[in-house]
């Protein structure tokens, strides 16, 4: 039944491709031996004119996937399951260390670097499939870029600022990392455009989405 749902979701995904969030740098943490849970991260960019809501996530290979929000309050680290997350129109939402993340649970086998995990996000515009490569923990911090910001910058990070990344202002930032980030994201935007035009042509091509561009 799961498999039928899975293929149906792929089909429906190809039909409504245009209104999905763009997924940048998806990554799943490799599991240390004995661990049965791990985290998945990515940046979601909503280039449409309406908010997109994600209400669920699942995987054909992992029995339980949830959306969680890490937080530190009064020096206590907490994690709360989220029933839904919203990406504002024109906005960005980061699934990143210390913030939103996918929690992959009840793993029956370890996830090793260079494995890949298929995750389906249930969005308000239909189901979308993302392929998430597995990397060693800590690899994600540059990929999503924002962990390199000073602590204050990160706390003030608003989703609409990320949408400005294509603009010149961002390249004017002092650190070298940021001019690199600008280039990388331009490259990613190109790659994403290509991915999406492929998706419209052929539903089956959708299974090979979202190559990670570094």
């Amino acid at each position, binding site marked *: 039944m799961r498999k039928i749902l899975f293929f149906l979701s792929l089909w429906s995904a190809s039909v409504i491709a245009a209104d999905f969030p763009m997924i940048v740098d998806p990554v799943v*943490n490799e599991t*240390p*031996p*004995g*661990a*049965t*849970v*791990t*985290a998945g991260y990515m940046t979601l960019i909503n280039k449409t004119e309406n908010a997109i809501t994600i209400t669920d996530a699942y995987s054909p290979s992992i029995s*339980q996937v*949830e959306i*969680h929000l*890490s937080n*530190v309050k009064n*020096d*206590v*680290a*907490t*994690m709360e*399951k989220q029933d839904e997350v919203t990406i504002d129109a024109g906005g960005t939402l980061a699934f990143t*260390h*210390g913030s939103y*993340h996918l*929690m*992959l*649970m009840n793993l029956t086998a370890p996830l090793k670097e260079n494995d890949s995990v298929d995750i389906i996000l249930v969005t308000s515009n239909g189901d979308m499939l993302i392929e998430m490569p597995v990397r*060693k*923990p*800590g690899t*994600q*911090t540059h990929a999503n870029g924002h*962990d390199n910001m000073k*602590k204050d910058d*990160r706390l003030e990070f608003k989703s609409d600022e990320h949408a400005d990344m294509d603009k010149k202002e961002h390249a004017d930032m002092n650190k070298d990392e940021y001019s690199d980030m600008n280039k990388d994201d331009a490259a990613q935007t190109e790659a994403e455009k290509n991915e999406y035009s492929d998706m419209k042509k052929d539903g089956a091509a959708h299974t090979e989405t979202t190559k990670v561009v570094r």
Partner: protein
Amino acid sequence: MLLIAGVAIAAGVFAGSLKMGESTSEDGALTTIQAQLKNSLLFPDDFKQVPAFSLLQGNNKPLTDADLKDKWSVLFFGFTNCPDICPVTLAEMNSVVKELANENIQVPQVIFITVDPARDTVEKMAEYVAYFNEDFIGGSGELTDITVFTRKLGVVASYTASSSGDNTYTVDHTASMLVIDPSLRVRAKLTPPHKADTIAADLKTIMANFN
């Protein structure tokens, strides 16, 4: 009358300022060092000592306060069913010890103690920390021993049933790491977000200033 009152007030102020003078010099030293720290909180000399404790590490070897003597240690508390904070923090600590070793600075021992011994056995903890760095120490033991130990250190942990309703639970736990000096004094806490270069810099400052 007024004269006596005036003298008394002056004496009071004088005595008060003497007292302030004493504490200012100790505070002054701490304040100077605190100002050099990027993301850590320094404690006064007599803040806290690591209490006697008796837990276990890999191969059921004992892990006690004796293992912290004569070395600098970084103590971190968490659990292996933690998908985000714990693994990334331990990965950062691995970068920290490598960075310090590269600069020929003494490397503190990193000790990760579970606050979820029901699921995190001694073997599981040993395997888990070894993945991040073979020299890291993973500790587990009886829940009561761990609870008493963490309470005395001011570390907290609480258990919340998962809303998935499947008998799983998550553990909220103190996010900071404790820095312990070779005399078992709790010298500082490394506060989140935990970033390798910031932690390395702060550890250098702390270890250089206290022994």
